[in-house]
């Protein structure tokens, strides 16, 4: 396999600020092909993820303003590489709190140790954060002070216990004084709404993120009031698939700490409720350098909960010079360089619907823009899973103590766009 030959980290201005080679050294010049593609793509998001060069393939991901560019030489599954690169980025995030150029540069030794531990000759070695954290301790201020005084290191010198058990995701000997298990049911609505307000496409991407702080080897089972909703599910490896198939119960020995238990998709057939509606009028007059902009957002199908954290972003056509708007609620900004209009609305109160209207100034002499900008909407609804998914109960076996349990629901807009 020799999966990943080398890895280059490149920032947005095109500097290679870190490189790691698992086999022989590949010259930095290989990245020139990447830069070429980057230039062609104009927008950073549009750089193709797989680029072929005469002797290598470059597979890249773009995360947190950093390109992770891997160099491979033989036929490999690109998804394997991409998944791995995302895992690397996740690990940096986990260790340093953020996955940024500064954080990586500040912790270059740990980064190197991590990369070495995660991949051996192209074979992923340890990618579970629990195991990595036992091998290489994350930096904390206290530890770095202690280390500089005592001369001890961040590197664990014993074999992680979870590494080889049948439950590699959990370490042994976990102890907490307060035993807690929290589950966040987070649902994101992806939707495309057409001009007339009807739904072209809608689905719910849901996840259950868990924070489990339980001592010992707890064996949990989580059941739902309406498990039938979950027909398209991806599981964390800890979940016993057979149990789910036969009883529709999630049974598992959880990893320690934060992890994603399941992700699921509720597709449009099940009728996804759309919690907001948008009334819009965006028009450009022929032969005059102005246009009108009038948008109102209102609540709909929100099950009596408040829609909050509403933000609307619009990519205005290139010909737009400036916008002169008044918002009845919240504040708006327009960036004349990127042509992005952002309107931070906040909470929607049904009594007084938020509205943003005014004049759009166009470049004089430019033809009337043809394209209609799409409105991108973000929002949040607390204490509601829009699909109606409800956790029934959580039972714990294998340990004697009584844990504290909690479930939180939240609905958010995912890729929610309204065409105008």
């Amino acid at each position, binding site marked *: 396999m020799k999966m990943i030959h080398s890895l280059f980290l490149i920032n947005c201005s095109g500097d*290679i600020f*870190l490189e790691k080679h698992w086999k022989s050294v590949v010259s930095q010049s290989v990245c020139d092909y990447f830069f070429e593609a980057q230039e062609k*793509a104009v927008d950073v998001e549009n750089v193709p*993820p797989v680029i072929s060069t005469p002797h290598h393939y470059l597979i890249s991901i773009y995360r947190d303003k950093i390109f992770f560019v891997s160099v491979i030489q033989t036929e490999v599954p690109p998804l394997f590489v991409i998944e791995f690169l995302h895992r690397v980025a996740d690990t940096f995030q986990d260790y340093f709190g953020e996955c940024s150029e500064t954080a990586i540069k500040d912790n270059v*030794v740990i980064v190197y140790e991590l990369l070495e531990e995660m991949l051996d*000759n192209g074979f992923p070695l340890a990618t579970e954060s629990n195991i990595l954290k036992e091998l290489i301790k994350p930096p904390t201020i206290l530890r770095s002070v202690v280390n500089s005084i005592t001369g001890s290191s961040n590197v664990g010198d014993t074999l992680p216990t979870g590494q080889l058990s049948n439950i590699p995701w959990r370490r042994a000997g976990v102890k907490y004084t307060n035993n807690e298990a929290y589950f966040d049911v987070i649902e994101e609505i992806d939707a495309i709404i057409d001009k007339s307000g009807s739904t072209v496409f809608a689905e719910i991407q849901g996840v259950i993120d868990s924070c489990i702080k339980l001592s010992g080897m707890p064996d949990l089972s989580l059941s739902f009031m309406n498990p039938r909703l979950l027909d398209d599910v991806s599981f964390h490896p800890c979940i016993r698939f057979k149990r789910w198939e036969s009883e529709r119960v999630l049974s598992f020995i959880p990893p320690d700490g934060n992890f994603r238990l399941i992700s699921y998709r509720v597709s449009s057939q099940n009728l996804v409720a759309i919690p907001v509606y948008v009334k819009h009028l965006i028009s450009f007059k022929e032969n005059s350098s102005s246009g009108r902009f009038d948008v109102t957002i209102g609540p709909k199908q929100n099950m009596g909960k408040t829609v909050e954290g509403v933000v609307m972003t619009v990519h205005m056509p290139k010909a737009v010079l400036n916008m002169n708007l008044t918002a009845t609620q919240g504040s708006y900004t327009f960036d004349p360089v990127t042509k992005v209009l952002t309107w931070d609305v906040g909470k929607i109160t049904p009594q007084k619907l938020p509205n943003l209207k005014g004049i759009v100034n166009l470049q004089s002499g430019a033809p009337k823009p*043809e394209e209609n900008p799409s409105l*991108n909407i973000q929002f949040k609804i607390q204490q509601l899973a829009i699909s109606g998914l409800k956790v029934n109960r959580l039972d714990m076996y294998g340990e004697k103590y009584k844990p504290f349990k909690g479930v939180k629901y939240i609905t958010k807009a995912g890729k929610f766009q309204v065409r105008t």
Partner: protein
Amino acid sequence: MTVGKDVSALFPDVVNCMQTDNLELKKLVYLYLMNYAKSQPDMAIMAVNTFVKDCEDPNPLIRALAVRTMGCIRVDKITEYLCEPLRKCLKDEDPYVRKTAAVCVAKLHDINAQLVEDQGFLDTLKDLISDSNPMVVANAVAALSEIAESHPSSNLLDLNPQSINKLLTALNECTEWGQIFILDCLANYMPKDDREAQSICERVTPRLSHANSAVVLSAVKVLMKFMEMLSKDLDYYGTLLKKLAPPLVTLLSAEPELQYVALRNINLIVQKRPEILKHEMKVFFVKYNDPIYVKLEKLDIMIRLASQANIAQVLAELKEYATEVDVDFVRKAVRAIGRCAIKVEQSAERCVSTLLDLIQTKVNYVVQEAIVVIKDIFRKYPNKYESVIATLCENLDSLDEPEARAAMIWIVGEYAERIDNADELLESFLEGFHDESTQVQLQLLTAIVKLFLKKPTETQELVQQVLSLATQDSDNPDLRDRGYIYWRLLSTDPVAAKEVVLAEKPLISEETDLIEPTLLDELICYIGTLASVYHKPPSAFVEGSRGVVHKSLPPRTGSSESAESPEAAPSAGQAAEQPAVIPAQGDLLGDLLNLDLGPPVSGPPLAASSVQMGAVDLLGGGLDSLMGDESEGLRSDVGGSPAMGGSGFTAPGPAAPAGMGAPLGSGLGDLFDLTGGVGTLSGSYVAPKTVWLPAMKAKGLEISGTFSRQVDSISMDLVLTNKALQVMSDFAIQFNRNSFGLAPAAPLQVHAPLAPNQSVEISLPLNTVGSVMKMDPLNNLQVAVKNNIDVFYFSTLYPLHILFVEDGKMERQMFLATWKDIPNENEAQFQIKDCSLNADAVSSKLQGSNIFTIAKRNVEGQDMLYQSLKLTNGIWVLAELRIQPSNPSFTLSLKCRAPEVSQYVYQAYDAILKN
């Protein structure tokens, strides 16, 4: 080091730090060694001792680290020292060390393959597949797969049901990455039957719910591959199909890079098994903030999934995309509308109107793209949407891209007779001829020549101008050559020029960018790999893949083997149902020209008279007719007609009286004995008629038909249907010369003019005394039909048994002598499959079609039938038919002095026996 600086000068100092107890420091030193040992091989030797010592360390972490690092030091001298520690580590009590050591074998193999083999590490590695720890199993599989890749011939991964079982058990317990290795390895296994395939599928299916998309896609690969072996009637097959859709859709909610790879793979899957995702169209709808590479892929898949059921939705989306900002994407969206029109015929009209709407927006690049696709729509559906030409012409001035200009010029040239000012339009392009791109210049040249052929009087000057521009003033050899060809053609033989330039173009295929089936099957085996992203087999692009083994899908082994399975080898039985035998264009054109323009070929007087009966000179007329020709150009139906469908033959039923055939000597009189005894022969089976000439290609005239033979007379049974709006009259028919001299024995008699929506049935008697020319395929017949509107051409295949004469029974002795006499290389053997008749039934059925059984023998339980038949041109064919009572497949051996007929005789046998 981390930013690409060379710090190898510090080597001795760093090596000195190696013997430390501080694990972090040790790790960093090891890291340094891996990077620079190669550049300082002599110094690196100093490190060996420490490595060997560390390999004995009580701490498994350090043992593993040492063996891991040693494998990464690519210095020959060091590898020698590595062998002993590695051997120990492969048998270490700690699985962590074992799994690290397994990978190390692969590393070592890469440095020195011979050493690995000599030291027997490969066998140790194979043993690790049975290790108790799933992680060790996964790594051993990964290492073996890697080694096997560089040794394609070696049988390293000897997969058998037992080892597969071990892998499947390990699959459930190992890490996500290990699961990928194991799944990829499983995909190379060939289950022995469908039951085993199903049981593997059942155990792999849970992987579809894994959170790691690479695991999901590898599982999809295994399932797609093994599914080939499952019978479609199986319930499990349907269940599996249903299970595949959700995980594929879920991949699309992941990060854009993952989406891209997933989409490229879905593109393959959709082509192989469209049923999996046919209801999931909506997930491929484009979001405006998708990266462009995702958008383009989604668009492609949308078109592949487009069908009559969802076309309205798709079109609405495409129209929406056509107003987006990104120019590339907009263009592709417009092009997609055109592809929909071509793919889903019912939607063509709506597509055209959508395109017209888009043209109204006057956005420059949208208009240009729309014109390019409308050109394709014209070609796919001729004579249907030409009314929009006027709208297109309005936008002539805004076209500045070569492709759009070329498309527009093509349209103007092609429909010159409908565009009043075609000459002016083309003339306007001609002004800047030298500034145009080659594509436009070539198109302009052709268009003006077309125009001249259609309206010779007004355009003489124009054509001369363009010819001189192309031949004298141009540096481009292509252009000059084409110019000269046209010039010569026009000056020597204008009629031929017309034939060549205005010939009907072959239809454009429905989906131009489908991957060729064999490549598709190969790519399905490579789902999830780079090959699937590039849609090329790895051998085509992976460096150093000299030994890549071509993978192929397993054959279906289910009990219900049937012709519907696309993989079934093109069994001989299908020869008769090849959907369309498309004659090589050149041939047809040449032959038809020959037919019409050449002097009547010398032949029996009857042939000449039949030509006259047909209609005097369908095409001829030379330049005069060219000048006066107001019709819309001549069309020869090149390759368009669906020749002979599976049921297009006629097979006389068993009741047909066979022996009563008149002796051959009965002469020509008999040939004209048209329908003499038909009444008494009503039992003979005539296959349903198939459409030979669709109305779309013949200005509303639809012709369907079939062939039949009744006692010494052959006839062509035709149905002419008028699907146009005007009355048709003055029908005539003529055949091109063909292999057996088939010719109409009487004129085509349609007594009354054919009113719109009316049809008439005609039985046209045929004889076999026309002039002969060998055709390919042998039984190809090219036909010209004329009516008051135009002349149309089509070709069809006739079943050979209409040519079997009634006196085809040979004497026994004669048979034996002839059989011996014909050299063995003239013998051809065929299988007739799925025929459940017994020997007697076969014999009587064949006799009905003038295949005579001369002798029957029973050898070792098999029935052997010896048969003879004679063709109208006097060729004898001898046959031996072997029938085993338990086997539905018959073996047919044919011997004939003209072996090229054997294949067609076999087709006739097959057809007769199966009806």
